[in-house]
């Protein structure tokens, strides 16, 4: 199988790789580039563990072919912390015990980040809707919802 070049921005850094045609973005990120923050759960578009942000929109990296991302701006949970300081969402997930096994967490945080970027003061229903494509089998969701609401409050206090 011929290899094809792909080039995109990942968490602010330019990345260029040769990949096999038909490689999913999830596999390219994890196996070629070494960003293992997106998780491969179902590979069917059901669990949301592979969620990443492509050009500002939440997408599933397991159903996205890497070749279709040429020139794109891709963000993953691995790029959220700055200088060793956790992003408010990461901090809130830790503080609220919103992570147990942790497998769904990067996808949850990506979904929550898109929500807070567009809706800085979301209602509880907004949070539930934003996370509706992400499955967690540990927490029962309530700590996750509370963590996102807490992060939103922390953001708005910092902005004030």
């Amino acid at each position, binding site marked *: *199988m011929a290899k094809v070049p792909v080039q995109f921005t990942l968490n602010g850094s330019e990345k260029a790789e040769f990949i*096999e*045609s038909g490689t*999913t973005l999830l*596999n390219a990120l994890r196996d070629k580039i070494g960003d293992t923050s997106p998780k491969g759960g179902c590979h069917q578009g059901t669990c949301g563990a592979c969620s990443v942000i492509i050009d500002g929109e939440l997408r599933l990296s397991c*159903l996205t072919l890497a*070749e*279709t991302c040429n020139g794109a701006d891709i963000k993953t949970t691995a790029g959220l912390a700055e200088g060793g300081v956790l992003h408010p969402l990461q901090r809130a997930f830790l503080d609220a015990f919103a992570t147990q096994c942790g497998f769904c967490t990067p996808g949850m945080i990506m979904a929550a980040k898109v929500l807070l970027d567009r809706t800085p003061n979301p209602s509880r229903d907004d949070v539930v809707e*934003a996370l*509706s494509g992400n499955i967690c089998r540990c927490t029962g969701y309530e700590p996750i919802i509370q963590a996102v609401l807490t992060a939103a409050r922390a953001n708005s206090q910092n902005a004030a």
Partner: protein
Amino acid sequence: MSLALQTFSTVKDANAALRAAGTRYLGGGTLVVRAANEGDVSVSSLVRVTDPGLSRIAVSSGKARLGASVTMAAIARHPELAALAPAARAIGGPAIRNMATVGGNLFAPAPYGDFAVALLALDATVVTEDGETPIEAFLAGRDTSRAIVTGVGFALPMAKSFRFLKVSRVKPKGVSVLSIAALLELAADDTVASARIALGCMADRPIRATAAEKALLGCTLTPREIAPALAAAPQGTAPITDPIASAWYRAEVLPVHLGRLLLS
């Protein structure tokens, strides 16, 4: 996975490439990449088209034309497609809605394809390079259809004449037990002058509830008058059985949910 992806700037060139055996069209990826991930070895090559016209939404003179690559998210946020927003929002979670396309939904097997149910109730036409096909005929022949769908067209429904309901066990989002879309025109005396009702999950693809449509004509939307239409609703259906629900269950609950939709 070994999949060869070919990218074309025009539908014409992609249609030619699509004739090769084992080749499928890549839209949002939620069907075909999912199939490949699942181990469907019949998919060996993918083609896609980058023509921006496929992502265009055009609304004028009461008619809408949606390019095949228009996503569910784009429909849900479009101010002039508010009537269709509930159907678009019923598809998946936010990430799926950013990817899943109008064209792909026409091919989604039950229990998926809820947006195609809405399009069937709206009597949409499906556009390919070969021309326009009524959606009912298109859905019937979709297994052998090879021409790339470029868009769909339909008359925008009047406010309140279009109703959509998706029933799922998981809240707020889950796979369909069934979905129902209804386009109803009421006469001046509030009786049903015309009815077009489409059902999802009541066959392997969206179908019309023609017996219920006929039984509704001349009725007012009251529990007593719609009862014969509800009793007739399962006629001609062949519901799917899957982990969400059995065929028996779907047939049993269809009249209940159709009643709720008509009385809402």
